């Protein structure tokens, strides 16, 4: 399995030498035809995943969930409940895999750590003045350091979309590398582009490369806080980016669609995208995640249906 390397792989070191070289590189990436991209994503969405394949996909999807609570009203009690659920998603069936992580605000990291203690479930924390990202760099870095110090295994940062849209790519790059440095060696960095705000597919491809050049361990679609979050098309595009990046540099980067994925059917479509775009190297929660909350219960109900042959209902999964 390829390992994560430090920022700007040697092959592409020149690219980040200056604002202008970075700009030329990003603008030199092949364009994206929106209709063609969406048609391809929709066509993969027609795959029919049944029986054994469905069972496999549901367990895989459960194991890839970053079970998320990002509310102003989060409390230690809520986070503890979430942690318990992440470790044992279905109390009636201990064969159910644990989720990949719980994802919380930085001030809840310690609580979350405690809640998942003794399991393989990671604690991810959004940082960098999530979700807007509109704070001074020093504040963002402090946010990251606090979360890491509290034990966060993963940091989900948001990029400065304003800087990106203004064409200040180097500023975005520098910010990501600074956050990466603040993550140290213990935390993996997920870089959120807020694709709904970048708006065009060309921008999403450029942001993907920018994030990967700056050392992202994961590239992530969205915060879940804007109108358009993860879609099959933007996720397909980001999968193409990580595929091409590995082909060019040997460095593998993970992908995390987040926001708006609520049903098993949706989740399985994303897994099909992964399977047919980047293949089995990414079919593992080290390299692919779902940022979601309500998705898990639907996966669990579908899992129960497959096990028993009966349709399940919301009373048979836990409400947290």
């Amino acid at each position: 399995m390829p390992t994560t390397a430090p920022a700007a792989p040697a092959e592409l070191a020149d690219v980040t030498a200056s604002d202008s070289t970075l700009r030329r590189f990003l603008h030199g990436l092949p364009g994206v035809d929106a209709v063609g991209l969406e048609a391809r994503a929709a066509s993969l969405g027609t795959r029919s995943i049944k029986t054994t394949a469905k069972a496999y996909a549901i367990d895989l999807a459960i194991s890839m969930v970053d079970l998320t609570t990002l509310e102003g009203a989060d409390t230690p009690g809520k986070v503890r409940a979430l942690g318990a659920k992440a470790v044992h998603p279905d109390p009636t069936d201990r064969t159910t895999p644990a989720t990949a992580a719980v994802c919380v605000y930085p001030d809840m990291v310690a609580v979350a750590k405690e809640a998942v203690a003794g399991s393989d479930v990671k604690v991810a924390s959004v940082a960098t003045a999530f979700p807007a990202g509109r704070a001074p760099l020093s504040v963002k870095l402090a946010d990251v350091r606090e979360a890491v110090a509290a034990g966060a295994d993963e940091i989900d940062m948001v990029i400065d979309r304003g800087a990106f849209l203004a064409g200040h790519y180097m500023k975005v790059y520098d910010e990501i590398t600074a956050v990466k440095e603040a993550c140290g060696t213990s935390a993996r960095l997920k870089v959120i582009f807020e694709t709904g705000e970048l708006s065009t597919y060309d921008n999403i491809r450029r942001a993907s490369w920018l994030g990967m050049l700056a050392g992202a361990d994961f590239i992530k679609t969205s915060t879940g806080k804007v109108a358009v979050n993860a879609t099959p098309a933007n996720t397909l595009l980001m999968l193409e980016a990580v595929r091409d990046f590995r082909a060019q540099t040997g460095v593998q980067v993970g992908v995390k669609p987040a926001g708006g994925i609520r049903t098993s059917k949706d989740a399985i479509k994303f897994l099909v995208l992964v399977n047919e775009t980047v293949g089995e190297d990414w079919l593992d929660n080290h390299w692919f995640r779902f940022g979601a909350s309500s998705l898990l219960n639907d996966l669990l109900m579908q899992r129960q249906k497959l096990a028993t042959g009966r349709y399940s209902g919301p009373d048979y999964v836990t409400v947290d």
Partner: protein
Amino acid sequence: MAFEYAPAPESRAIVDIAPSYGLFIDGEFTEAADGKVFKTISPSTEEVLSEVAQAGEADVDRAVKAARKAFGKWSALPGSERAKYLFRIARIIQERSRELAVLETLDNGKPIRETRDADLPLVAAHFFYYAGWADKLDHAGFGPDPKPLGVAGQVIPWNFPLLMLAWKIAPALATGNTVVLKPAETTPLSALFFADICRQAGLPKGVVNILPGYGDAGAALVAHPDVNKVAFTGSTAVGKQIARTVAGTHKKLTLELGGKGANIVFDDAPIDQAVEGIVNGIFFNQGQVCCAGSRLLVQESVHDELLDSLKRRLATLRLGDPMDKNTDIGAINSAEQLARITALAEQGEAEGAERWSPACELPSSGYWFAPTLFTNVTQAHTIARDEIFGPVLSVLTFRTPDEAVAKANNTPYGLSAGIWTEKGSRILAVANKLRAGVIWSNTFNKFDPTSPFGGYKESGFGREGGRHGLEAYLDVR
């Protein structure tokens, strides 16, 4: 552990294929005059699906007489009434589309994914579109009160059996003609099911007559003195023969024939979408498509990069049981077609082109051909000139837009072409220079009932689809 898709077969139970079928003449199923029958098989398994009456010259005569007899009343109906029959047909096709998709997949060998998502929706849409024209012909730009021609003799191919039927029958009926249609000998079933749909729709007897049979029946239909209109889709060789047959008569003729479409990829193309378009261009329906993008013209500066991407993509194509909803590549339609594809591919190798296919296990029974691409192909290679009508892509290179256009046009065919570039002005300039009837920029193999389709040069003449498609069935010019 890999993510293996479990078999997801579409249920065959939805379609009830009778052990035998007759000819459909004057609203009745009937045996052939000489009692001949032929078997239609499923090309993916070689299983016999049914035994079908085989039309001969006497049956053609009977069908043309029935169509002639029906013509008077049918053409005299108010357009609004003809429209309602066609709307009924469109709706019944929508209701029965799953059944028809399964049937088509069984008889043709193409994947259920395509019959379900492409063929059947387009068939219903075509009837729906032309239904609306039936009472608006005064406004179609062919002068006031344009008249139908009379009896239309129509001969269709096996690659899109029901869709080609729709392309022929819908405009013919909308304009007030009556029809004798001969489906291909390897795919007669969906046309016979269509006959049943005509009965369900209450279409008057004799307005549509279906004559399953071989080339001799098609030739007899084309030559019949009481046919006023001949429409043919198929090979250029047969098209020329038909043109000779109707020479010196008053029969109106439209031909939709072969192609050797160029898919031109410039260095600034949206590469990932171009790869999808190339795959769709040549592997849709196993490449058995007259407008297939069978020649890939790649700008030399992106050749290696594009070929790497293309090969990686081909490795993900799923070949196998056409009834499986996840199958991308189904069976070749017949042993005869498989032999032709095989021979041309061998000739490509013999002439020095480099052959490549992804690792791909072919089923043991049925007719199969792995997705294949040839590199190092030049204009002089047979595989760059002859229509292969199979899943075989010839890759050529070019250096400049001028050269791309010159190579694309360097063929007696002129049906389709594709252009991949992010530069808008180049799309328009190149599209303007290409001598082909249908051009897809940054897409490929898109069809729509409102959109005229047809060729330049030896790809035939006349247009099917859209307002233009009416002209073929009206007594104008």
